[in-house]
């Protein structure tokens, strides 16, 4: 144990996962570009896991940068801030990446001069505040998970039990993406400060910052920042550069040697996992009074003139980001929001970025390779080796194609994280992840109709019981003879008269 801040110096080497080309150095040659406010932003009012915010501004209203524009619709939902100073142009439905339907958004047009809202105080001693107060302020700051989940950070912190561990995820494992790497290289002290505040917010005894073996610059910067902070509760862990080592559940397995129970959350085993970008955003709020209005986005790929990392305002259009990176180069064929494995292919570049957008890739023809025609599964088992959830994708595939929902359930489709490692390993080029995505919907529909059927059955049985009870009740209290005669008399006229 040479270095006290290095924890778990030899983390476990996973049997699962795939090795893809990295292509991260494309965008790490230049420092992070701090983007000027764009002429217009389109800020989505929805977050992860069905959360949403309610606008508190009206069209035409002037806004400072950082001013709250939408408040949570319920406890645990996000707070949204204006990411530029300007005027509200519209509040309405706009298309965003990853949603088939347009979602509620606030459109803001930039004003001449950039003014900042000063409603949030600077609190350098934030980590000595009471835990509940820190969590309340994190909620007010509108901080959500920047790793991609977009789930309000405060709500996640609220779910922590007693004496949890904090895991800061800096192990971005997808190719091309380098936003967390660059954040650590340039602002490691922010991540460490954010980590200390987050630890204080949940009473964590230990905060592990996880990075990958292929991030030596980030590691050096992080070690320096941790030395400066001199907090014995903060340690660093270096995990393998295999994909998907940076997935929340996979990282917990690699760093702590523990598994999140199926259907559960990391909090169930006393671990709270946050992205390093989220930690930096927490530090920005408490140390600068700046709510969540921007994030670092890697703009890269063979179809980008000067690939780089850009600190961009939330709601900036992809087209504006590409302009900041020198525009398109050559004839890009595919535009991807996110990484090449889990990212979404965009049909056009007018869509806005959200707080979850970590990367934009413009790939030229052939840059990612052509997918040949699909062949039958040859049972080579490469997908079984690749699956980080220890599923058997080739068996799941037949269950999806047979629409056998009972088998889908027993084979564990709900544990599929849709990382795409099976697709990447498949020599037959079967679109496994797309099939499993469909399989999950199939299972959800089957479970829904099963639930509905059981409600209907319960209702039907209750009715039968009630009728039986009523029938049984009647003979016990036979109506007296007179009443019976009256009843019979009343029924008689109803019987049709026989025409003689």
């Amino acid at each position, binding site marked *: 144990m040479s270095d006290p801040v290095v924890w778990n110096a030899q983390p476990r080497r996973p049997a699962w996962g795939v090795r893809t080309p990295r292509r991260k150095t494309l965008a790490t040659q230049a420092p992070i570009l701090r983007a000027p406010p764009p002429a217009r932003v389109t800020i989505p009012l929805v977050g992860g896991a069905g959360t949403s915010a309610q606008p508190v501004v009206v069209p035409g209203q002037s806004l400072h940068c950082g001013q709250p524009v939408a408040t949570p619709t319920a406890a645990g939902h996000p707070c949204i801030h204006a990411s530029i100073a300007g005027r509200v142009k519209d509040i309405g439905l706009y298309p965003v990446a990853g949603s088939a339907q347009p979602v509620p958004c606030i459109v803001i047009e930039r004003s001449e001069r950039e003014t900042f809202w000063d409603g949030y105080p600077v609190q350098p001693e934030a980590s000595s505040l009471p835990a509940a107060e820190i969590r309340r302020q994190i909620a007010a700051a509108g901080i959500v998970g920047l790793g991609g989940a977009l789930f309000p950070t405060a709500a996640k912190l609220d779910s922590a039990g007693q004496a949890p561990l904090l895991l800061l995820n800096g192990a971005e494992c997808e190719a091309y993406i380098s936003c967390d790497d660059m954040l650590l290289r340039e602002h490691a002290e922010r991540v460490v400060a954010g980590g200390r505040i987050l630890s204080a917010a949940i009473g964590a005894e230990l905060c592990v910052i996880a990075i990958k073996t292929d991030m030596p610059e980030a590691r050096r910067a992080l070690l320096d920042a941790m030395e400066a902070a001199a907090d014995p509760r903060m340690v660093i862990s270096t995990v393998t550069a295999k994909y998907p080592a940076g997935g929340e559940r996979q990282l917990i397995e690699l760093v702590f040697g523990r598994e999140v129970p199926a259907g559960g959350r990391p909090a169930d085993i006393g671990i709270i996992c946050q992205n390093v970008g989220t930690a930096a955003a927490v530090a920005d709020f408490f140390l600068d009074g700046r709510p969540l209005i921007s994030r670092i986005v890697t703009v890269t790929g063979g179809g980008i003139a000067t690939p780089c990392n850009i600190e961009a305002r939330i709601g900036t259009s992809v087209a504006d980001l590409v302009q900041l990176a020198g525009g*398109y180069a050559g004839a890009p064929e595919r535009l991807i929001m996110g990484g090449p*494995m889990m990212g979404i292919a965009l049909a056009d570049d007018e869509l806005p970025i959200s707080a979850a957008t970590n990367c934009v890739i413009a790939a030229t023809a052939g840059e990612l390779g052509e997918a040949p025609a699909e*062949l039958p599964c040859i049972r080579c088992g490469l997908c079984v080796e690749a699956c980080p959830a220890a599923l058997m994708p080739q068996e799941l595939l037949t269950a999806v194609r047979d629409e056998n929902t009972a088998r889908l359930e027993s084979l564990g489709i709900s544990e599929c994280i849709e990382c*795409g490692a099976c697709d*990447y390993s498949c*020599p037959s080029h079967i679109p496994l992840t797309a099939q499993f995505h469909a399989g999950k919907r199939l299972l959800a529909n089957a479970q829904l109709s099963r639930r509905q059927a059981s409600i209907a059955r319960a209702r039907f049985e209750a009715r039968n019981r009630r009728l039986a009870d009523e029938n049984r009740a009647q003979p016990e209290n036979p109506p007296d003879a007179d009443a019976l005669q009256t009843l019979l008399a009343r029924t008689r006229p109803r019987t049709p008269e026989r025409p003689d």
Partner: protein
Amino acid sequence: MRFATAQPPQWPSPSSVSGMMRIVILALLPAIMVSAWFYGPGVFFNIIIAVIAALGTEAIALRLRQKPVTATLGDGSALVAALLFAFSLPPLCPWWVTASGMVFAIGLVKHAYGGLGYNLFNPAMAGYVLVLVSFPDLMTGWPAPDIGDLDYQRPGIGATLQYCLTGQFPDALTLDAIARATTLDSVRAGLGAMRTMDEIRMNPVFGDFGGAGWEWVNNFVAMGGGALLLLGIIRWHIPAGVLGGLLGMASFVWLLDPEISPSPAFHLFSGGAILGAFFIATDPVSSPTTARGRLIHGAGIGMLTYIIRTWGSYADGIAFAVLLMNMTVPLIERWTRPRIYGRSA
């Protein structure tokens, strides 16, 4: 600007079935060359006939099943089956033996069960077993290896070709005059005649460990198998299981009574043990997909091979062992399913 879209992942797999099959073929080529060096041009004739029969049968089966013909032929799986089948045959073998084995393997064993990926049994071994039980007399055409100090008659290219095409040798040559018992056959006959291993090994068909010539072919098969392991085409579990199962049984019995038991090294370097371990038992379609399942599958093949060689009525048992274990694959996979992340066992 507008762009093409697709469902994630956006990054297609860099590997391919045809690429894997190509590497398997390349890994087997050196051993084929060495085999031809020792056993003559019949090795090549077998391969040519097997390939023609396999591709022809596959094309007809695909046409009948209304599947794309040229695209599917290109996946290389029929070619690999043909090479492995031809490589297992005796170097002196009439064409109808080769062709009928291949028509059966590709037409019935592979395509009648649904084609690539759906066959229960290893096509090459099913074809081999068919011709072994159908043409027992014609499956003995192993000439003595071309080692130099052996007394033997060796047919030339012309005589080999004539035998291959007509089943007859020119002039006064007969199969009996040319063919030699393989080492496994010699051991079986010798032990049957109550001789000891030391006496049996006096026969010049024996080399340092296994059969003369055989052991060199096996060295090159092992090198090809090593290449497959290094290139990640196969995993170590099945070869380790096969060789471990065979050597474990052989060592145990040999230690009990070395006088009348062939040594473990002899079992390893004679017959098809190494070819079976690296090239045949590792056929992905008819073997398990889990690591533990592969070890069990391989060990079963190794032990069955020993049992059939020692107490069965055939000299080599690889083909039967492979087919028997093929039947257990669904069961093995059921038993060895990995524990899903986050779920209890």
